[in-house]
């Protein structure tokens, strides 16, 4: 066994190695052939190959020294207008030496940028088109402001099929000489839901345990890697134990770094799945929407979500009265 993160070691190096997203790969290869790349948006769920495609594109385009022509930024670690103004401009304005006159800037988690930062990016993109092409990576293209979207070629990445994922994992398993049962593949697919990074990390953590990988191993990895449980918190609140639910919320936010937006998304889904009367669902949805908006504005995640938990406690009481 070798000692890197396998998700990196087995990340495809060239567009031709990417086993899924056929249409996307075809179009990107045509860019390489033409030696011209437009500004792009790569949108899609996590672990579907967005970053990989961007890195492969750069490598295929520039060859070995591709690193010199490439810059990776992520909007969540270096957020805000300042980041765009300084880092991006410095990189974007200098001309690349070589056959291809532009550099590539990969902006990961672009949907995490404030709209102000996105507005600032709009002008930068236009001014430096000659010398720099942007690839913006996002889970939701909808969170990218319209003027930016209209300047970019959109690419939609979708989840990998089980066959494709199994094929990819099998390659790793052979290279690393791991023992795995067939049920291990099924379990990994089930827990990773088509997220290849998650699948590969799960495989590596399971392999580190040194036993033949079966369903149980996979589930023990997932159980330990995801100790936070949003559904459990929702249930606790609806059962009437607000204090315990708030405690779970705190741990999620502070200990496990769960994003407020993930929690709110889950609550929203669960409400509509619940047995609550329709009128309550709509009322709650209104509250959820308001709090979602407040979180975007930067309000305190715990305080805001606690207010929502109180609503769930009240709804739970209503439900137990009705039923």
């Amino acid at each position, binding site marked *: 066994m070798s000692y890197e993160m396998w998700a990196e070691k087995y990340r495809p190096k060239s567009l031709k190695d990417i086993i899924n997203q056929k249409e996307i790969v075809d179009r990107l290869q045509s860019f390489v052939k033409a030696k011209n790349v437009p500004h792009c948006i790569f949108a899609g769920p996590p672990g579907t190959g967005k*970053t990989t495609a961007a890195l492969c594109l750069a490598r295929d385009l520039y060859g070995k020294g591709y690193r010199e022509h490439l810059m990776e930024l992520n909007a969540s670690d270096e957020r805000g207008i300042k980041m765009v103004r300084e880092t991006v401009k410095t990189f974007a304005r200098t001309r690349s030496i070589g056959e291809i006159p532009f550099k590539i800037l990969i902006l990961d988690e672009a949907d995490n940028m404030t709209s102000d930062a996105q507005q600032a990016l709009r002008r930068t993109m236009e001014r430096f088109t000659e010398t720099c092409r942007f690839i913006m990576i996002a889970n939701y293209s909808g969170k990218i402001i319209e003027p930016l979207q209209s300047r970019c070629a959109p690419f939609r990445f979708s989840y990998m099929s089980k066959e494709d994922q199994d094929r990819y994992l099998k390659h790793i398993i052979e290279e690393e000489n791991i023992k795995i049962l067939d049920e291990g593949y099924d379990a990994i697919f089930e827990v990773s839901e088509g997220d290849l990074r998650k699948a590969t990390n799960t495989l590596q953590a399971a392999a*580190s345990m040194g036993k033949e990988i079966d369903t149980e191993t996979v589930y023990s990895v997932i159980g330990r*890697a995801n100790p936070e449980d949003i559904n459990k918190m929702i249930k606790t609140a609806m059962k009437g134990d607000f204090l315990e639910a708030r405690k779970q919320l705190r741990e999620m936010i502070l200990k496990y770094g769960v994003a407020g937006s993930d929690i709110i998304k889950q609550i929203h889904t669960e409400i509509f799945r619940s047995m609550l009367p329709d009128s309550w669902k709509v009322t709650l949805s209104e509250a959820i929407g308001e709090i979602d908006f407040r979180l975007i504005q930067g309000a305190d995640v715990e305080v805001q979500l606690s207010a929502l938990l109180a609503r769930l406690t009240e709804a739970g009481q209503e439900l137990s009265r009705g039923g």
Partner: protein
Amino acid sequence: MSTTWTQKHRPQTLNEIVGNTEAKQQFLNWLKSWNKGIPKKRAALLHGPPGIGKTVTVEASAKELSIELVEKNASDYRTADAIKRFAGLASQYGTLFGGNRLILLDEMDGVSGKDDRGGVRELTNVLKTARSPVVLTANDAYDPRFRTIRNYCLVIAFKNPTVRETVSHLKRICAKEGIDADEEALKLIAERAERDVRSAVNDLQALAQGKNRLVIEDVKWLAGRDRKEVIFDVMRTILYSGDSWEAKKAVSSADVDPDMLFNWIYENTPYHLTDPHDLVKAMDYLALADIYRKRIMDTQYWTLLRYVIDFMSSGVAVSRQRSKASGWIPFRFPEKIRMLSRTKGERALQKALGMKIWKRCHISARRSTKEVIPYLKIIFENNPEMATGLSDWLDLDEEMIEYLAGNKKQTKAILAKLE
């Protein structure tokens, strides 16, 4: 849950009372001397600052010598009439079956010299003729009111226990409550209480109840002078007055950092507003207050603070409609602050680790805390060999390795392989 720790952990024996070794002994000796007949001084006056064990010394001594204790509090000896009523008790010899009786007049400071002149005189008579031991406690024995009384009493001074003695008392309580407390945290509590043991125990309860760990960060907020009482008063008004104006006034007049106060209210409200309907309203108001806090931060327009105060005081106060008051519920230290300070180091480490991962794995530090670090932890706990390779590849330092490995032994194994 609703008992105070000062009651729950009240010392039962003289040994459990910290400090004042000589005073305790002196009192015990005087009490024992009653076995050999009426001593020269028929009363003892224990004096000293509040909360350091005068009353418990009397209680524990009575228990140790199996003497019946008759306790009177200030209202019983305020006036000459009241004193006459119990004077009879003192004039009798012991109890029917030969055991002695000890009469305790607690908190003599409650006797007002001006109104109760007759009372003091009457009391002096009782002390002169008592056939059972009488004990008085007071904060200031040299108050002119007590001048005559003093002459008939064995005066025993109680002093503040040292910080170390107070800490040892707090430790005993922590052990019983199953709390693993850092020495320096207890020391700070003791210092802040200015060696008033009772007040220190109350603080300990507010800070540590329901916890199994107490560290210095949990206690640091005490450093501000007298903030605790002010905060508690404000909270009582907000949670129980039901009066929007009173609540608002309490907050505005208290000289406390509004942010700190917000956290106290946010922490404690759910314990006191137990009806879900009330809770929804109160939490909504707190969420609204939070929005205005954010607006102030963004705009630095501090006049908006008045709305923060409105929502967190009046808003919460008027939310109480259906909740019933149910006994004494202690105020709790804001868990949010406690957790923030406790997880601060961890979060900084996660971030540093995240930056290392970002360099190698094309994933932001933020996302790596959820999507990479948990898997690394499993690997580091299970497979030192793979962990060694990864430490090298990611260029991790010792602290990061220990964080991922979770224990010293595994960390050592990995570090050994790295060299």
